[in-house]
């Protein structure tokens, strides 16, 4: 029940509702401490289905995670789909490899796991291997990955092409600036910055929920 309570408190903070309390027995690592893995063969369904069935995650969390999975799947190999990222994140969490730190909402935690998987995969892409490597950023230039990164950044920026404030914020974020530094460098008030963030969130959520089919 601990996991269920965690999921509930995370979403309750946003005024959302979670049906049922969930069961920690179904997913040990949705709880906030690292625990032992669940034996595999008896488990039915995909990791995502198991998390949903155990009511450990709200519908709104799922939608936010879907949007984030689509965002993070950008630039990965064509055979890697957004749901691969999402399913893998749930698989690692449910297996007990990842323990949720105290106070971190479920969707933020799963998003972090997806970012981590993406980052690792990204670094391995040009090497053509899947071996686990160090988490330290490899400073050696890789022209293929660099070009891909430029293209993906451009694609993300295009989402906000009609919003110059958001474009400047994105530029500042890419430079590693803090919100205060972005505001002072561009002369934005806190209200301007917060309004732009709100527009940014709406655009990203819209893109994440959009149903697109390949021609």
């Amino acid at each position, binding site marked *: 029940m601990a996991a269920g309570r965690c999921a509930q408190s995370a979403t309750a903070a946003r005024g959302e509702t979670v049906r049922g309390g969930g069961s920690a027995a179904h997913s040990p690592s949705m709880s906030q401490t690292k625990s032992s893995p669940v034996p595999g063969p008896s*488990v039915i369904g*995909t990791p995502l289905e198991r998390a949903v069935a155990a009511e450990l995650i709200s519908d709104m969390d799922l939608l936010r995670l879907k949007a984030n999975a689509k965002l993070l799947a950008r630039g990965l190999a064509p055979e890697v789909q957004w749901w691969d990222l999402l399913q893998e994140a749930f698989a690692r969490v449910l297996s007990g490899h990842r323990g949720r730190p105290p106070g971190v909402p479920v969707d933020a935690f799963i*998003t972090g796991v997806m970012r981590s998987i993406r980052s690792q995969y990204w670094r391995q892409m040009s090497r053509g291997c899947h071996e686990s490597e160090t988490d330290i950023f490899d400073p050696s230039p890789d022209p293929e990955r660099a070009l891909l990164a430029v293209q993906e950044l451009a694609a993300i920026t295009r989402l906000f092409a009609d919003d110059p404030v958001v474009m400047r914020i994105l530029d500042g974020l890419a430079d590693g600036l803090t919100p205060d530094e972005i505001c002072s460098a561009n002369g934005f008030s806190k209200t301007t910055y917060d309004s732009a963030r709100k527009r940014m969130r709406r655009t990203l*959520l819209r893109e994440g929920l959009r149903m697109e089919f390949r021609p």
Partner: protein
Amino acid sequence: MKKYQRFAAQQPEVRLEKVLEALTTEVAGATEQEVLDAAADLRMDPRLRGSVATLGVKGLVFPYRPGVFGPVKPDTGVSPTPEGPSPPTDTPDAS
């Protein structure tokens, strides 16, 4: 060290990582109303059972493919054969 950090920050890969981190944090922090508003822009209502907004994450869940991101660890707790429904013939775009 500072010189290296400045150099690293200019690399497209690092810039992309930073932007993705910031944007995914924003999305993860979105309120329920913001999610509903974004869905309404697309004439979707995620509160309805079987809403298209939930395609892929609830109801019709796309299969788990172990090993896409590397070798499957023996204790991942997932059967190697996904038992979920197959994805539609026209697969949604990864973007």
